[in-house]
């Protein structure tokens, strides 16, 4: 083989080794490095093994602080646009006004009241939605009869926009707390149901078979194999549900409510208090951020097995 490589001319005349030569052809043009070449590599030296690892620079500013940089920049630009008069003060309040509005509303206790009212509705509605969604998904996922009866019905109902049910729910339940909680429950049930059911269906049949072989009863299979396997899907559904819960609630609270963040928005609009509108929107942003943090915490604890985190 080496003979073929070193023969730089007349490769085609070599007959039966021609194929071999063709395979090696790319090497023909590259000259062999000579030991006396001027660009000889530096002599290897022993270095700290850690220097071989891909370099991850420790940030000078902690990540948590850096993540605040974006929002801070937005507020700064907002302030500058208002201060320079680019934004009309009649249609846009500067950040300072929003802070003042927050302080005033906190002093009177109104902000806490509205925030807690909305939070209470979301927690109640979401709890009901989770309960219903998980129950239906479990029934449809574990029993064929449940699947036949439930799934088509729920899939059909799902395509009805939840907000569209508002007039009907108002007629049935009036303008108290029930219609708001119910609407949130209905709106959050579907993402939970769909994602949990899909996850139940996606549980590895081989694990179920193994579980059965090792003596798990139907209940044991559900408890030890199928439902734990559906947790990742449930959490995906929970994320969608959290976003949906606030969306639906704000809508419901703007139409028929005397309290809540949605009511605060309506109040701001009807009294032309742009600072209050902006305050309510900022609170939404913070609530969304908090909700996401909660789900991420749940993922870290419930899905520790995925990351190989021993927890000890």
């Amino acid at each position, binding site marked *: 083989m080496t003979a073929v490589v070193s023969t730089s001319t007349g490769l085609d005349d070599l007959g039966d080794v021609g194929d071999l030569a063709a395979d090696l052809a790319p090497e023909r043009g590259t000259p062999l490095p000579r030991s006396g070449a001027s660009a000889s590599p530096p002599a290897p030296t022993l270095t700290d093994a850690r220097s071989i690892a891909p370099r991850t620079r420790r940030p000078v500013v902690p990540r948590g602080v850096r993540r605040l940089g974006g929002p801070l920049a937005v507020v700064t630009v907002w302030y500058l646009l208002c201060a320079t008069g680019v934004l009309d003060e009649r249609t846009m309040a500067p950040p300072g006004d929003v802070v003042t509005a927050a302080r005033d509303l906190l002093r009177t206790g109104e902000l806490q009241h509205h925030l807690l009212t909305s939070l209470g509705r979301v927690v109640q509605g979401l709890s009901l939605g989770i309960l219903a969604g998980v129950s239906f998904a479990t029934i449809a996922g574990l029993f064929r009869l449940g699947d036949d009866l439930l799934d088509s019905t729920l899939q059909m109902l799902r395509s009805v926009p939840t907000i569209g049910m508002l007039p009907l729910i108002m007629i049935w339940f009036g303008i108290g707390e029930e219609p708001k909680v119910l609407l949130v429950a209905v709106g959050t049930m579907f993402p939970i149901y769909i994602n949990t059911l899909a996850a139940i269906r996606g549980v590895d049949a*081989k*694990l179920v*078979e193994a*579980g059965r*072989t090792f003596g798990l009863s139907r209940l044991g299979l559900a408890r030890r*194999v199928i439902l734990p396997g559906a947790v990742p899907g449930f959490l995906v559904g929970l994320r969608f549900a959290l976003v949906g819960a606030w969306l639906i609630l704000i809508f419901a609270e703007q139409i028929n409510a005397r309290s809540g963040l949605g009511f605060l928005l309506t109040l701001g609009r009807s009294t032309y208090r742009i600072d209050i509108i902006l305050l309510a929107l900022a609170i939404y942003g913070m609530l969304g951020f908090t909700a996401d943090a909660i789900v991420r915490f749940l993922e870290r604890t419930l899905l520790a*097995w995925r990351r190989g985190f021993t927890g*000890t």
Partner: protein
Amino acid sequence: MTVAAVTPTLGAGVAGAAVVVRGLHRAFDGRAVLAGVDLTIGPGEFVALLGRSGSGKSTLLRALGGLDGDFEGQALVPGRRSVVFQEPRLLPWARTLPNVTVGLSGEAARRGPAMLAEVGLTDHARAWPVTLSGGEAQRVALARALVREPELLLLDEPFGALDALTRIRMHALLQELCRRYRPAVLLVTHDVDEAILLADRVLVLSGGRIAFDEQVDVRAPRRRSDAAFAALRSRLLAELGVAEG
């Protein structure tokens, strides 16, 4: 669905046998995979089942394990059976020890830690399956099977996915554990050497029937260099339709 039904008509030969199978048939979409399998396995006997890919080895094992219905024929199998699959099939969301004792309670579940010690994984009792190596995971699967003190241990190519060195260690571990617990063993494998190394008796499944059935007469410790080993190896390879290189 006749598997595991104790059939008194089997007559002589049933007494003192762990597994008795008579005229077992199984067809997939009209294509017969098992066409009248007769098989007897004695208590504590280690039987290796060889066969070409698609010959129905795993189908037979699944029949004996009660993993599949739709069989015709008669079978007598012990009540306590365990399976080790090719892939460990551990529950990813359960730590190692709960995986071993899954489905058990009381006294049987309390044997878990001791069993985990026997496969050398005491330190990993609280580890998540995802952190285990392939060999470790399969040792957990072996512990999960043996903690049930099975009278029949069904092994479906349990070492097929392991690297060569790990496989050698697993062979030794399996031999030791089988010596201690004495279950009847049916090892499905495509590895002729593995079959000769481990088994008391080697079968070849071909054409839906047991086409070859012979005791392994190779002195322990069995070595590939042994003449008897090589001779049996040649015959088995010929039976499997592979010309020796």
